[in-house]
Protein backbone atom coordinates (compact mmCIF):
# COMPACT_ATOMS: atom_id res chain seq x y z
CA UNK A 1 0.00 0.00 0.00
CA UNK A 2 2.82 2.37 0.91
CA UNK A 3 4.40 1.56 -2.45
CA UNK A 4 1.15 2.60 -4.11
CA UNK A 5 1.15 5.92 -2.25
CA UNK A 6 4.76 6.51 -3.14
CA UNK A 7 4.23 5.75 -6.84
CA UNK A 8 3.71 8.48 -9.32
CA UNK A 9 0.19 9.91 -9.32
CA UNK A 10 -0.49 9.03 -12.93
CA UNK A 11 0.46 5.41 -12.55
CA UNK A 12 -1.43 5.11 -9.26
CA UNK A 13 -4.60 6.65 -10.73
CA UNK A 14 -4.42 4.43 -13.80
CA UNK A 15 -3.90 1.30 -11.73
CA UNK A 16 -6.71 2.13 -9.33
CA UNK A 17 -9.23 2.86 -12.11
CA UNK A 18 -8.23 -0.36 -13.86
CA UNK A 19 -8.72 -2.38 -10.67
CA UNK A 20 -12.08 -0.77 -9.85
CA UNK A 21 -13.43 -1.46 -13.33
CA UNK A 22 -12.19 -5.05 -13.24
CA UNK A 23 -13.59 -5.83 -9.83
CA UNK A 24 -16.91 -4.16 -10.59
CA UNK A 25 -17.21 -6.03 -13.88
CA UNK A 26 -16.49 -9.33 -12.11
CA UNK A 27 -18.95 -8.58 -9.32
CA UNK A 28 -21.78 -7.63 -11.68
CA UNK A 29 -21.52 -10.92 -13.55
CA UNK A 30 -22.79 -12.86 -10.50
CA UNK A 31 -26.33 -12.94 -9.18
CA UNK A 32 -26.97 -12.26 -5.52
CA UNK A 33 -27.63 -15.56 -3.69
CA UNK A 34 -29.80 -13.88 -1.08
CA UNK A 35 -33.18 -14.51 -2.70
CA UNK A 36 -33.74 -18.26 -2.99
CA UNK A 37 -31.41 -19.33 -0.18
CA UNK A 38 -33.12 -16.82 2.12
CA UNK A 39 -36.58 -17.99 1.01
CA UNK A 40 -35.59 -21.60 1.68
CA UNK A 41 -34.31 -20.62 5.13
CA UNK A 42 -37.48 -18.72 5.99
CA UNK A 43 -39.83 -21.48 4.79
CA UNK A 44 -37.86 -24.23 6.56
CA UNK A 45 -37.79 -22.23 9.76
CA UNK A 46 -41.58 -21.70 9.59
CA UNK A 47 -42.09 -25.40 8.91
CA UNK A 48 -40.07 -26.32 12.01
CA UNK A 49 -42.19 -23.99 14.15
CA UNK A 50 -45.46 -25.44 12.77
CA UNK A 51 -44.26 -29.01 13.37
CA UNK A 52 -43.16 -28.18 16.93
CA UNK A 53 -46.53 -26.62 17.63
CA UNK A 54 -48.29 -29.66 16.17
CA UNK A 55 -46.72 -31.87 18.86
CA UNK A 56 -47.86 -29.45 21.55
CA UNK A 57 -51.37 -29.35 20.06
CA UNK A 58 -51.61 -33.14 20.10
CA UNK A 59 -50.77 -33.08 23.80
CA UNK A 60 -53.28 -30.34 24.55
CA UNK A 61 -56.17 -31.89 22.58
CA UNK A 62 -55.48 -35.38 23.95
CA UNK A 63 -55.79 -34.04 27.49
CA UNK A 64 -58.96 -32.14 26.48
CA UNK A 65 -60.46 -35.34 25.12
CA UNK A 66 -59.65 -37.26 28.32
CA UNK A 67 -61.10 -34.42 30.39
CA UNK A 68 -64.26 -34.35 28.25
CA UNK A 69 -64.62 -38.08 28.80
CA UNK A 70 -64.10 -37.71 32.53
CA UNK A 71 -66.65 -34.89 32.67
CA UNK A 72 -69.36 -37.42 31.75
CA UNK A 73 -68.42 -39.67 34.68
CA UNK A 74 -70.85 -39.58 37.60
CA UNK A 75 -69.14 -41.98 40.02
CA UNK A 76 -67.07 -39.86 42.48
CA UNK A 77 -64.73 -42.78 43.21
CA UNK A 78 -63.90 -43.21 39.56
CA UNK A 79 -63.41 -39.44 39.25
CA UNK A 80 -60.95 -39.35 42.11
CA UNK A 81 -59.01 -42.36 40.86
CA UNK A 82 -58.73 -40.93 37.36
CA UNK A 83 -57.43 -37.58 38.54
CA UNK A 84 -55.09 -38.29 41.42
CA UNK A 85 -52.88 -41.18 42.42
CA UNK A 86 -53.86 -41.84 46.05
CA UNK A 87 -50.35 -42.93 47.05
CA UNK A 88 -48.27 -40.18 45.45
CA UNK A 89 -50.90 -37.46 45.06
CA UNK A 90 -49.55 -36.91 41.54
CA UNK A 91 -51.60 -36.48 38.40
CA UNK A 92 -52.92 -39.64 36.90
CA UNK A 93 -52.80 -40.35 33.18
CA UNK A 94 -55.82 -38.16 32.48
CA UNK A 95 -53.82 -34.99 32.88
CA UNK A 96 -50.46 -36.26 31.67
CA UNK A 97 -49.21 -35.19 28.23
CA UNK A 98 -49.45 -37.87 25.57
CA UNK A 99 -45.91 -37.13 24.41
CA UNK A 100 -43.25 -36.13 26.91
CA UNK A 101 -39.76 -37.08 28.05
CA UNK A 102 -37.25 -38.29 25.49
CA UNK A 103 -39.84 -38.83 22.74
CA UNK A 104 -41.01 -35.21 22.78
CA UNK A 105 -37.65 -33.60 23.60
CA UNK A 106 -35.93 -35.45 20.77
CA UNK A 107 -38.49 -34.30 18.21
CA UNK A 108 -38.47 -30.72 19.39
CA UNK A 109 -34.66 -30.73 19.45
CA UNK A 110 -34.45 -32.10 15.90
CA UNK A 111 -36.83 -29.42 14.63
CA UNK A 112 -34.90 -26.72 16.52
CA UNK A 113 -31.65 -27.96 14.99
CA UNK A 114 -33.19 -27.92 11.51
CA UNK A 115 -34.49 -24.42 12.16
CA UNK A 116 -31.10 -23.23 13.43
CA UNK A 117 -29.36 -24.63 10.35
CA UNK A 118 -31.88 -22.94 8.05
CA UNK A 119 -31.62 -19.64 9.92
CA UNK A 120 -27.81 -19.72 9.84
CA UNK A 121 -27.89 -20.40 6.10
CA UNK A 122 -30.34 -17.53 5.64
CA UNK A 123 -28.13 -15.18 7.65
CA UNK A 124 -25.07 -16.23 5.67
CA UNK A 125 -26.88 -15.50 2.42
CA UNK A 126 -28.18 -12.11 3.50
CA UNK A 127 -25.59 -10.78 5.99
CA UNK A 128 -24.70 -7.27 4.86
CA UNK A 129 -20.98 -6.59 5.05
CA UNK A 130 -21.05 -3.77 2.49
CA UNK A 131 -21.61 -1.02 5.03
CA UNK A 132 -18.65 -2.17 7.16
CA UNK A 133 -16.38 -2.66 4.15
CA UNK A 134 -17.29 0.73 2.68
CA UNK A 135 -16.70 2.43 6.04
CA UNK A 136 -13.34 0.70 6.48
CA UNK A 137 -12.34 1.54 2.88
CA UNK A 138 -13.35 5.16 3.44
CA UNK A 139 -11.19 5.29 6.52
CA UNK A 140 -8.32 3.70 4.62
CA UNK A 141 -8.54 6.32 1.85
CA UNK A 142 -8.50 9.06 4.48
CA UNK A 143 -5.54 7.47 6.24
CA UNK A 144 -3.53 7.22 3.01
CA UNK A 145 -4.31 10.84 2.27
CA UNK A 146 -3.09 11.79 5.73
CA UNK A 147 0.00 9.63 5.29
CA UNK A 148 0.83 11.20 1.94
CA UNK A 149 0.38 14.68 3.44
CA UNK A 150 2.81 13.71 6.19
CA UNK A 151 5.30 12.48 3.61
CA UNK A 152 4.86 15.73 1.64
CA UNK A 153 5.40 17.90 4.72
CA UNK A 154 8.65 19.95 4.93
CA UNK A 155 11.37 17.39 5.28
CA UNK A 156 9.18 14.77 3.59
CA UNK A 157 9.72 13.26 0.15
CA UNK A 158 6.29 13.19 -1.62
CA UNK A 159 3.53 15.37 -3.00
CA UNK A 160 0.21 14.84 -1.17
CA UNK A 161 -2.61 12.72 -2.63
CA UNK A 162 -5.57 14.71 -3.93
CA UNK A 163 -9.08 14.00 -2.60
CA UNK A 164 -9.89 12.43 -5.97
CA UNK A 165 -7.00 10.00 -5.69
CA UNK A 166 -7.88 9.13 -2.10
CA UNK A 167 -11.45 8.53 -3.33
CA UNK A 168 -10.15 6.19 -6.03
CA UNK A 169 -8.26 4.17 -3.41
CA UNK A 170 -11.41 4.01 -1.28
CA UNK A 171 -13.45 2.83 -4.27
CA UNK A 172 -10.87 0.20 -5.21
CA UNK A 173 -10.62 -1.27 -1.70
CA UNK A 174 -14.38 -1.15 -1.33
CA UNK A 175 -14.96 -2.89 -4.66
CA UNK A 176 -12.31 -5.50 -3.91
CA UNK A 177 -13.64 -6.14 -0.41
CA UNK A 178 -17.23 -6.52 -1.56
CA UNK A 179 -16.28 -8.76 -4.47
CA UNK A 180 -14.22 -11.03 -2.20
CA UNK A 181 -17.10 -11.19 0.30
CA UNK A 182 -19.56 -12.24 -2.41
CA UNK A 183 -17.13 -14.80 -3.75
CA UNK A 184 -16.55 -16.26 -0.29
CA UNK A 185 -20.28 -16.16 0.49
CA UNK A 186 -21.11 -18.11 -2.68
CA UNK A 187 -18.35 -20.58 -2.06
CA UNK A 188 -19.47 -21.15 1.57
CA UNK A 189 -23.14 -21.60 0.64
CA UNK A 190 -22.22 -24.01 -2.12
CA UNK A 191 -19.95 -26.04 0.16
CA UNK A 192 -22.50 -26.22 2.99
CA UNK A 193 -25.47 -27.09 0.76
CA UNK A 194 -23.51 -29.81 -1.04
CA UNK A 195 -21.93 -31.26 2.10
CA UNK A 196 -25.10 -31.35 4.16
CA UNK A 197 -27.66 -32.21 1.50
CA UNK A 198 -27.59 -35.94 2.41
CA UNK A 199 -28.24 -34.98 6.06
CA UNK A 200 -31.16 -32.71 5.16
CA UNK A 201 -32.58 -35.44 2.92
CA UNK A 202 -32.34 -37.92 5.78
CA UNK A 203 -33.87 -35.47 8.26
CA UNK A 204 -36.69 -34.73 5.84
CA UNK A 205 -37.36 -38.45 5.35
CA UNK A 206 -37.43 -39.06 9.12
CA UNK A 207 -39.82 -36.16 9.62
CA UNK A 208 -42.03 -37.24 6.72
CA UNK A 209 -42.29 -40.82 7.99
CA UNK A 210 -45.58 -42.45 8.87
CA UNK A 211 -45.42 -40.86 12.31
CA UNK A 212 -47.64 -37.96 11.23
CA UNK A 213 -50.21 -40.52 9.99
CA UNK A 214 -50.26 -42.16 13.42
CA UNK A 215 -50.47 -38.85 15.27
CA UNK A 216 -53.09 -37.65 12.78
CA UNK A 217 -55.23 -40.72 13.50
CA UNK A 218 -55.03 -40.06 17.24
CA UNK A 219 -55.79 -36.38 16.79
CA UNK A 220 -58.78 -37.06 14.52
CA UNK A 221 -60.17 -39.51 17.10
CA UNK A 222 -59.58 -36.85 19.80
CA UNK A 223 -61.43 -34.17 17.82
CA UNK A 224 -64.21 -36.60 16.90
CA UNK A 225 -64.75 -37.54 20.55
CA UNK A 226 -64.81 -33.87 21.59
CA UNK A 227 -67.33 -33.18 18.82
CA UNK A 228 -69.54 -36.10 19.89
CA UNK A 229 -69.42 -35.01 23.54
CA UNK A 230 -70.43 -31.50 22.44
CA UNK A 231 -73.40 -33.04 20.61
CA UNK A 232 -74.32 -35.23 23.62
CA UNK A 233 -74.19 -32.26 25.97
CA UNK A 234 -76.41 -30.31 23.59
CA UNK A 235 -78.88 -33.20 23.37
CA UNK A 236 -79.30 -33.12 27.14
CA UNK A 237 -79.22 -29.37 27.67
CA UNK A 238 -81.10 -27.87 24.73
CA UNK A 239 -84.59 -27.90 26.34
CA UNK A 240 -83.33 -25.40 28.94
CA UNK A 241 -81.60 -23.14 26.41
CA UNK A 242 -82.99 -20.03 24.74
CA UNK A 243 -83.05 -19.89 20.97
CA UNK A 244 -80.02 -17.58 20.95
CA UNK A 245 -78.09 -19.89 23.29
CA UNK A 246 -79.00 -22.89 21.12
CA UNK A 247 -77.69 -21.18 18.01
CA UNK A 248 -74.48 -20.30 19.81
CA UNK A 249 -74.00 -23.89 20.94
CA UNK A 250 -74.74 -25.21 17.46
CA UNK A 251 -72.13 -22.85 16.04
CA UNK A 252 -69.62 -24.29 18.53
CA UNK A 253 -70.59 -27.81 17.46
CA UNK A 254 -70.09 -26.77 13.85
CA UNK A 255 -66.57 -25.60 14.70
CA UNK A 256 -65.88 -28.91 16.47
CA UNK A 257 -66.94 -30.72 13.34
CA UNK A 258 -64.70 -28.53 11.20
CA UNK A 259 -61.76 -29.63 13.37
CA UNK A 260 -62.70 -33.29 12.81
CA UNK A 261 -62.74 -32.74 9.06
CA UNK A 262 -59.61 -30.57 9.03
CA UNK A 263 -57.35 -32.74 11.23
CA UNK A 264 -56.52 -35.38 8.56
CA UNK A 265 -55.79 -32.61 6.03
CA UNK A 266 -53.57 -30.83 8.57
CA UNK A 267 -51.48 -33.93 9.29
CA UNK A 268 -51.31 -34.85 5.62
CA UNK A 269 -50.04 -31.34 4.86
CA UNK A 270 -47.53 -31.62 7.69
CA UNK A 271 -46.23 -34.84 6.18
CA UNK A 272 -46.03 -33.26 2.72
CA UNK A 273 -44.27 -30.17 4.13
CA UNK A 274 -41.72 -32.41 5.89
CA UNK A 275 -40.91 -34.01 2.52
CA UNK A 276 -41.00 -30.66 0.73
CA UNK A 277 -38.18 -29.29 2.94
CA UNK A 278 -36.02 -32.07 1.52
CA UNK A 279 -37.20 -31.38 -2.05
CA UNK A 280 -36.42 -27.66 -1.71
CA UNK A 281 -32.92 -28.38 -0.34
CA UNK A 282 -32.37 -30.86 -3.16
CA UNK A 283 -33.34 -28.18 -5.70
CA UNK A 284 -30.88 -25.83 -3.97
CA UNK A 285 -28.22 -28.56 -4.15
CA UNK A 286 -28.84 -29.08 -7.88
CA UNK A 287 -28.55 -25.34 -8.53
CA UNK A 288 -25.39 -24.65 -6.51
CA UNK A 289 -23.74 -27.77 -7.92
CA UNK A 290 -23.78 -26.02 -11.28
CA UNK A 291 -22.78 -22.67 -9.72
CA UNK A 292 -26.27 -21.21 -9.84
CA UNK A 293 -28.07 -19.76 -6.86
CA UNK A 294 -31.47 -19.70 -8.43
CA UNK A 295 -33.57 -22.04 -10.57
CA UNK A 296 -37.17 -22.60 -11.59
CA UNK A 297 -37.20 -25.76 -9.49
CA UNK A 298 -36.12 -23.95 -6.29
CA UNK A 299 -38.83 -21.34 -6.83
CA UNK A 300 -41.41 -24.09 -7.45
CA UNK A 301 -40.45 -26.18 -4.39
CA UNK A 302 -40.36 -23.19 -2.05
CA UNK A 303 -43.65 -21.92 -3.41
CA UNK A 304 -45.29 -25.32 -2.78
CA UNK A 305 -43.80 -25.44 0.72
CA UNK A 306 -45.17 -21.94 1.31
CA UNK A 307 -48.67 -23.02 0.27
CA UNK A 308 -48.55 -25.98 2.68
CA UNK A 309 -47.34 -23.72 5.50
CA UNK A 310 -50.21 -21.33 4.83
CA UNK A 311 -52.69 -24.19 5.12
CA UNK A 312 -51.05 -25.45 8.35
CA UNK A 313 -51.03 -22.01 9.88
CA UNK A 314 -54.70 -21.41 8.96
CA UNK A 315 -55.81 -24.64 10.67
CA UNK A 316 -53.69 -24.03 13.75
CA UNK A 317 -54.88 -20.44 14.12
CA UNK A 318 -58.52 -21.44 13.73
CA UNK A 319 -58.49 -24.27 16.26
CA UNK A 320 -55.71 -23.40 18.72
CA UNK A 321 -58.15 -21.92 21.24
CA UNK A 322 -60.92 -24.41 20.67
CA UNK A 323 -61.93 -26.69 23.56
Amino acid at each position, binding site marked *: MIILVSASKKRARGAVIFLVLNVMAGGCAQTNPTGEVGAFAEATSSYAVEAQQAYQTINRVTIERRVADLATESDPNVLGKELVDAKTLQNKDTLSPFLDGVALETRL*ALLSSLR*NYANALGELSSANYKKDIDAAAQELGG*TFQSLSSTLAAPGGSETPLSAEEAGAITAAVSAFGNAIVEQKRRSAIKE*VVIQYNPLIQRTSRVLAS*GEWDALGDLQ*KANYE*TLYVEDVKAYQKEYPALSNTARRQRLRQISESYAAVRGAPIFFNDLKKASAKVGDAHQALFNAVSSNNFTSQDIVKQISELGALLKSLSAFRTRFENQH
Partner: protein
Amino acid sequence: MDATIRVNLVNLLNEFNKLLVLTNNDDEEAKIRKNRRILFVLLEEVVKQEIDANTTEFREAISALREARQKVEDAKADIGKIVDAIRFVVLAAKAVDTIVRVGIGLIA
Protein backbone atom coordinates in the same frame (compact mmCIF):
# COMPACT_ATOMS: atom_id res chain seq x y z
CA MET B 1 -48.99 -54.23 11.18
CA ASP B 2 -49.06 -51.30 13.64
CA ALA B 3 -50.80 -49.16 11.04
CA THR B 4 -53.48 -51.82 10.52
CA ILE B 5 -54.13 -52.14 14.25
CA ARG B 6 -54.20 -48.36 14.55
CA VAL B 7 -56.64 -47.87 11.68
CA ASN B 8 -58.94 -50.59 13.03
CA LEU B 9 -58.89 -49.01 16.49
CA VAL B 10 -59.74 -45.61 14.99
CA ASN B 11 -62.60 -47.16 12.98
CA LEU B 12 -63.94 -48.86 16.10
CA LEU B 13 -63.76 -45.60 18.05
CA ASN B 14 -65.65 -43.94 15.24
CA GLU B 15 -68.39 -46.59 15.46
CA PHE B 16 -68.69 -46.19 19.24
CA ASN B 17 -68.95 -42.43 18.83
CA LYS B 18 -71.77 -42.89 16.29
CA LEU B 19 -73.57 -45.22 18.73
CA LEU B 20 -73.15 -42.68 21.50
CA VAL B 21 -74.92 -40.00 19.48
CA LEU B 22 -77.79 -42.37 18.66
CA THR B 23 -78.55 -43.60 22.18
CA ASN B 24 -80.43 -41.74 24.89
CA ASN B 25 -80.08 -44.43 27.51
CA ASP B 26 -77.74 -43.48 30.39
CA ASP B 27 -76.56 -47.06 31.00
CA GLU B 28 -75.79 -47.61 27.34
CA GLU B 29 -73.96 -44.31 27.21
CA ALA B 30 -71.86 -45.31 30.22
CA LYS B 31 -70.99 -48.66 28.62
CA ILE B 32 -70.11 -47.06 25.30
CA ARG B 33 -67.87 -44.51 27.03
CA LYS B 34 -66.17 -47.24 29.06
CA ASN B 35 -65.41 -49.19 25.88
CA ARG B 36 -64.29 -46.03 24.15
CA ARG B 37 -61.92 -45.28 27.04
CA ILE B 38 -60.34 -48.74 26.70
CA LEU B 39 -59.98 -48.29 22.95
CA PHE B 40 -58.26 -44.93 23.49
CA VAL B 41 -55.79 -46.48 25.94
CA LEU B 42 -54.95 -49.05 23.25
CA LEU B 43 -54.74 -46.42 20.51
CA GLU B 44 -52.43 -44.20 22.56
CA GLU B 45 -50.22 -47.21 23.28
CA VAL B 46 -50.01 -48.23 19.61
CA VAL B 47 -49.16 -44.67 18.52
CA LYS B 48 -46.60 -44.34 21.33
CA GLN B 49 -44.88 -47.56 20.26
CA GLU B 50 -44.65 -46.22 16.72
CA ILE B 51 -43.20 -42.94 18.01
CA ASP B 52 -40.68 -44.65 20.30
CA ALA B 53 -39.50 -46.87 17.45
CA ASN B 54 -38.58 -43.75 15.44
CA THR B 55 -36.91 -41.80 18.26
CA THR B 56 -33.42 -43.19 17.65
CA GLU B 57 -33.48 -41.99 14.04
CA PHE B 58 -34.51 -38.53 15.19
CA ARG B 59 -31.76 -38.43 17.78
CA GLU B 60 -29.06 -39.42 15.29
CA ALA B 61 -29.85 -36.49 13.01
CA ILE B 62 -29.68 -33.86 15.78
CA SER B 63 -25.90 -33.81 16.32
CA ALA B 64 -25.24 -33.80 12.57
CA LEU B 65 -27.57 -30.80 12.14
CA ARG B 66 -25.81 -28.97 14.96
CA GLU B 67 -22.50 -29.58 13.18
CA ALA B 68 -24.01 -28.22 9.94
CA ARG B 69 -25.12 -25.06 11.70
CA GLN B 70 -21.66 -24.58 13.22
CA LYS B 71 -20.10 -24.91 9.78
CA VAL B 72 -22.36 -22.13 8.47
CA GLU B 73 -21.55 -19.92 11.47
CA ASP B 74 -17.82 -20.51 10.89
CA ALA B 75 -18.18 -19.54 7.22
CA LYS B 76 -19.96 -16.35 8.26
CA ALA B 77 -17.21 -15.50 10.74
CA ASP B 78 -14.61 -16.19 8.04
CA ILE B 79 -16.26 -13.69 5.69
CA GLY B 80 -16.27 -11.13 8.50
CA LYS B 81 -12.48 -11.42 8.57
CA ILE B 82 -12.29 -9.50 5.27
CA VAL B 83 -13.65 -6.42 7.02
CA ASP B 84 -11.20 -7.06 9.85
CA ALA B 85 -8.34 -7.27 7.33
CA ILE B 86 -9.19 -3.86 5.85
CA ARG B 87 -9.48 -2.41 9.36
CA PHE B 88 -6.09 -3.91 10.16
CA VAL B 89 -4.55 -2.14 7.14
CA VAL B 90 -6.14 1.12 8.33
CA LEU B 91 -4.53 0.65 11.74
CA ALA B 92 -1.19 -0.22 10.14
CA ALA B 93 -1.30 2.83 7.86
CA LYS B 94 -2.18 5.04 10.84
CA ALA B 95 0.75 3.60 12.74
CA VAL B 96 3.08 4.25 9.78
CA ASP B 97 1.73 7.82 9.55
CA THR B 98 2.50 8.36 13.23
CA ILE B 99 6.03 6.92 12.91
CA VAL B 100 6.75 9.02 9.80
CA ARG B 101 5.53 12.17 11.61
CA VAL B 102 7.85 11.39 14.51
CA GLY B 103 10.73 10.72 12.08
CA ILE B 104 10.14 13.96 10.18
CA GLY B 105 9.94 15.80 13.50
CA LEU B 106 13.29 14.41 14.55
CA ILE B 107 14.93 15.31 11.21
CA ALA B 108 13.49 18.83 11.28
